[in-house]
């Protein structure tokens, strides 16, 4: 392994600009003549809009325009869409309601944009926004997903507020397996609603160029090309080649910046109407009402066991809250990203899952770090843990007994697991976590009046999203391949253009490592270009732990082509047959001779083209590739959480965390560990702290950092991180992906630890001090006095 190649903990190339304050985030961009936009948002969860009077606002100082949904419709700006078709059990397509960027006639959640004020300054826009008079007729709000079907109908297209009633698996086989079961474990689970809260709030700047009749959108996006495609092809803002989307440095995404949002569309449209650049910067409080939320499932799940603890079957019925409108990929999250993972790491013959997706008068819900897979893992890992406790078995032993051991393994829910060694990660994690010493630690804690518990989560995820043909057959509106272009300059330095987008993942470093490793050139001579549709031809962006497995694979494919072409050039230079050219460590040699050409010389010769005929061989050295994976990848591992609970207050502290993950080949262990740390923190946040709470009227009660508890440094111990490796067989470097693992694994580990500590399973997320205290109170009341 070289100091900068694959496997090296190379310090990040991008860091210098971030630690010196020179990052370039969207809000740092200021366009000449720019105006500032403020959205007037519905204060009602569900209301008819009788009339909007903008006249007073128009007269306010500095106002450039006050725009409404009626004008948007008159300009024939199309609706936002959900790009993944799900069909119900009865074969009917999902009920996608119209979603205008600015509501017209009706507002469907608190925060639904109803007007847009554009002014010279932000303060002027805010002042004027208060003068927009909207006459609302409030309607009954639907908030609780479990009661949505009986609530007031939100959209004409969706009777009973039902988007789809979907299922997966063989219900008859599952029922038969349950009938033969020795033991059945049953759980009711709420997967709490989360607010992603990337630290950088969303920003959009729309600019219309009258001279060229073209648009530019600067936005905080994880996938600028998809934004361009949707805004061009579906919303009809401009032809695709007349719209440039630039997502510069982006301050975290976690899924929430995948989606095409109303504000981006509205700023572009307003820029054409006003002839001025229009910039919108979200406040944090606004972000709570405007960014897609995550999770929000209500599930009943059951697991059937044989007398020896073998899992016979699993069934689950889930109600998924998709909010007021269908966000870009929302339909896929509680279906193909969820139910397909219900086999966990286990050999389960029969699985059946039903999912009802419903509209409610809440912010749209879509993918958030893990997207469907944390929900699936929580169901499976809680069932397994509780099942072990109910049957008096050791939870690790029960897991071991049921692990998939032979690969490839076809689950009953679509996925074909390609490689893994689940026992290896469990074993290693148990050693690092010193599970053997836990009983003593528990006794010691008890002496201090603390309850100590230990919980496992042996998770699996499907990443490297995704084989285009497969997702197409499941309803995706796009292919999920990735593109790359390798541009070799005449001096031998290299630019990598990728359709992935980095917003914290360190692509500028890891992608360069792959190239440095392959071409044998210094990592300083490689730069990575992303996030601009004018520079990178097309790409699908970064989410679903796909940038390594799919994005890097595309780079490898392009590098194959570059090497092949460079060998041809070298053959001419060295006057040898192309088949005799060997490329190693940045040098081209002729096999069996001492003739050699350095990488830089070959690059230069490719461009000056003095040594070969331009008819025979094209000058230049630049190759592109599209890589479409043949399978998902299956990162998996074992997380072990240990908690201590203050019996008097219910306060839970995570005191130990061990994670052993199998991500296949690791390019940069430092960056991979960082991804795991961050994922764990978000998962622990979900388990202990975070929860978006709506009141009955549909007001978001937890609408700022004053009420929505964000994880802080003091909420965590140092994490113990390690890996095991089984390479992914389906891509050239054996990569599986690491971005979501922590968030997927963690919630179940925490709740399994808490319930282990307090001896009752009735703990909901977030397990706040009050929640745990109440569970303890209830358990103590139920317990016989003699105990």
């Amino acid at each position, binding site marked *: 392994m070289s100091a900068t190649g694959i496997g090296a903990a190379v310090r990040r190339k991008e860091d210098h600009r971030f630690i010196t304050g020179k990052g370039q985030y969207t809000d740092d961009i200021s366009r000449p003549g720019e105006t500032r936009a403020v959205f007037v948002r519905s204060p009602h969860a569900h209301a008819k809009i009788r009339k909007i009077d903008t006249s007073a606002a128009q007269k306010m100082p500095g106002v450039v325009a006050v725009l409404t949904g009626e004008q948007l419709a008159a300009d024939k700006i199309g609706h936002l869409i959900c790009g993944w078709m799900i069909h119900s059990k009865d074969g009917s397509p999902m009920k996608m309601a119209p979603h205008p960027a600015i509501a017209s006639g009706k507002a469907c959640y608190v925060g639904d944009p109803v007007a847009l004020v554009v002014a010279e300054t932000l*303060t002027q826009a805010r*002042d004027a926004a208060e003068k927009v008079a909207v006459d609302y007729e409030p309607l009954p709000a639907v908030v609780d997903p479990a009661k949505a079907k009986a609530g007031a109908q939100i959209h004409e297209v969706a009777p009973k507020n039902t988007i789809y009633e979907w299922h997966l698996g063989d219900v008859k086989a599952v029922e038969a397996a349950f009938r033969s079961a020795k033991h059945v474990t049953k759980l009711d689970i709420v997967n709490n609603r989360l607010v992603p809260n990337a630290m950088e709030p969303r920003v959009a700047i729309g600019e219309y160029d009258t001279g060229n009749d073209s648009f530019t959108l600067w936005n905080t996006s994880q996938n600028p090309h998809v934004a361009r495609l949707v805004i061009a092809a579906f919303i009809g803002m401009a032809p695709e080649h007349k719209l440039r989307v630039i997502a510069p440095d982006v301050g975290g995404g976690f899924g929430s910046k995948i989606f095409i949002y109303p504000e981006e569309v509205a700023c572009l449209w307003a820029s054409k109407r006003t002839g001025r650049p229009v910039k919108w910067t979200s406040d944090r409080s606004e972000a709570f009402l405007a960014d897609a939320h995550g999770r929000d499932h209500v599930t009943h799940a059951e697991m059937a066991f044989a007398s020896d603890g073998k899992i016979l079957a699993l069934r689950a019925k889930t109600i998924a809250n998709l909010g007021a409108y269908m966000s870009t990929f929302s339909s896929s999250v509680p279906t193909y990203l969820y139910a397909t993972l219900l086999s966990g790491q286990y050999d389960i013959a029969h699985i059946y899952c039903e999912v009802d997706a419903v509209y409610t008068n809440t912010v749209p819900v879509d993918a958030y770090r893990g997207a469907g897979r944390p929900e699936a893992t929580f169901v499976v890992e809680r069932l397994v843990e509780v099942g072990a406790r109910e049957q008096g078995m050791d939870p690790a032993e029960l897991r071991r007994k049921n692990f998939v051991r032979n690969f490839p393994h076809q689950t009953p829910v679509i996925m074909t697991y390609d490689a893994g060694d689940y026992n290896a990660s469990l074993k290693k994690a148990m050693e690092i976590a010193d599970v053997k010493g836990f009983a003593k630690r528990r006794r010691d804690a008890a002496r201090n009046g603390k309850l100590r518990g230990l919980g496992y989560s042996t998770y699996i995820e499907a990443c490297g999203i995704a084989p285009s043909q497969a997702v197409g057959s499941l309803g995706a509106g796009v292919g999920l391949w990735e593109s790359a272009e390798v541009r070799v300059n005449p001096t031998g330095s290299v630019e990598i253009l990728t359709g992935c987008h980095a917003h914290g993942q360190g692509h500028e470093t890891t992608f360069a490592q792959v190239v440095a490793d392959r071409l044998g050139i210094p990592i300083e001579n490689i730069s990575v270009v992303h996030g601009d549709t004018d520079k990178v031809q097309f790409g699908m962006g970064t989410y679903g732990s796909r940038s390594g497995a799919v994005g890097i694979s595309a780079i490898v494919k392009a590098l194959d082509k570059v090497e092949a072409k460079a060998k041809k050039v070298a053959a001419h230079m060295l006057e040898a047959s192309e088949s005799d050219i060997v490329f190693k460590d940045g040098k081209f040699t002729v096999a069996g001779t001492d003739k050699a050409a350095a990488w830089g010389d070959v690059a230069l010769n490719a461009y000056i083209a003095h040594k070969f005929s331009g008819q025979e061989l094209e000058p230049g050295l630049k190759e592109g590739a599209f890589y479409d994976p043949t399978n998902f990848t299956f990162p998996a591992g074992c997380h072990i959480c240990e908690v201590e609970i203050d019996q008097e*207050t219910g306060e839970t502290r995570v005191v130990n965390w061990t994670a052993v993950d199998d991500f296949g080949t690791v390019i940069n262990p430092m960056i991979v560990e960082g991804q795991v740390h961050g994922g764990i923190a978000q998962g622990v946040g979900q388990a202990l702290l975070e*929860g978006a709470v709506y009141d009955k009227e549909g007001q978001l009660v937890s609408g700022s950092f004053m009420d929505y508890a964000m994880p802080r440094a003091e909420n965590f111990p140092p994490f113990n991180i390690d890996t095991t490796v089984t390479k992914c067989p389906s891509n050239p470097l054996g990569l599986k992906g690491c971005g979501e693992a922590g968030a997927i694994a963690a919630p179940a580990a925490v709740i399994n630890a808490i319930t282990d500590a307090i001896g009752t399973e009735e703990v909901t997320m977030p397990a*706040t001090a*009050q929640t745990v205290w109440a569970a303890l109170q209830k358990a103590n009341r139920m317990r016989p006095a003699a105990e």
Partner: protein
Amino acid sequence: MYAFTYHRPTTVRQAANLLAKHEDAKLLAGGHSLIPVMKLRLASPPVLIDLSKVEGLSGIELKGRSIVIGAMTRHNDVARSKELQEHLPALAEVPAAIGDPHVRHVGTIGGSVANNDPNADYPAACLGLGATIVTSKRKIAADDFFTGMFSTALEPDEIITKISFPIAKKAAYQKFKHPASGFALVGVFVSKRASDIRVAVTGAGANGVFRVKAFEEALAQRFTPKSLDGLSIKPDGLNSDIHASAEYRAHLVGVLARRAVADAVKR
């Protein structure tokens, strides 16, 4: 934020005159309560009177059997005060638990006390120690000062200049932090000074800080955590929100009071 004008007086008298002159004016001390609500357009004072240039409002002094703290003294300076560490360490614990280091560099004791946020920490210390709030006009006993949520005995043109805390032999503050805001979900300050035993609770009461007479009487028998065993307060009238029900808050009052007494007796 709405437009405003501001003044930067250099004496208390100037500040009080400005306050008298501008009916809706607000005093700006550290600004860490006021500026956030102005940003969110939840407050719109047309006039701000900044106290940062007023002479003589900062500092911590030992005066006889009291510690006197100037109204503009920053939380961080109170938390790190040598005088307090020596004579009244329990009081130093209070600002040390407020907000975060950056907030503590700016926030002031006078601002906190005048604002009387029902979840703030300092009101518990004032009431729990039987402090005297000294203003531009008079001296007000803490027992008379805190009159309800965000409401005090201060007259419209009255300015807190300093707060005098009697030194208590035994005292301690216990805070259960709100997991999001960092304010007190419940905070309990206890003190024992000769005949005066006080238990003051913040965060729990719908009307702000209050004393728990039943606890005080029990502790008067014997100042030990055991004296509070089996005692609790009723949840009626306590705050209830998504983070803590009235029942839970009532429970925490008992737990924290016992822990505070345990800390106090160790001193």
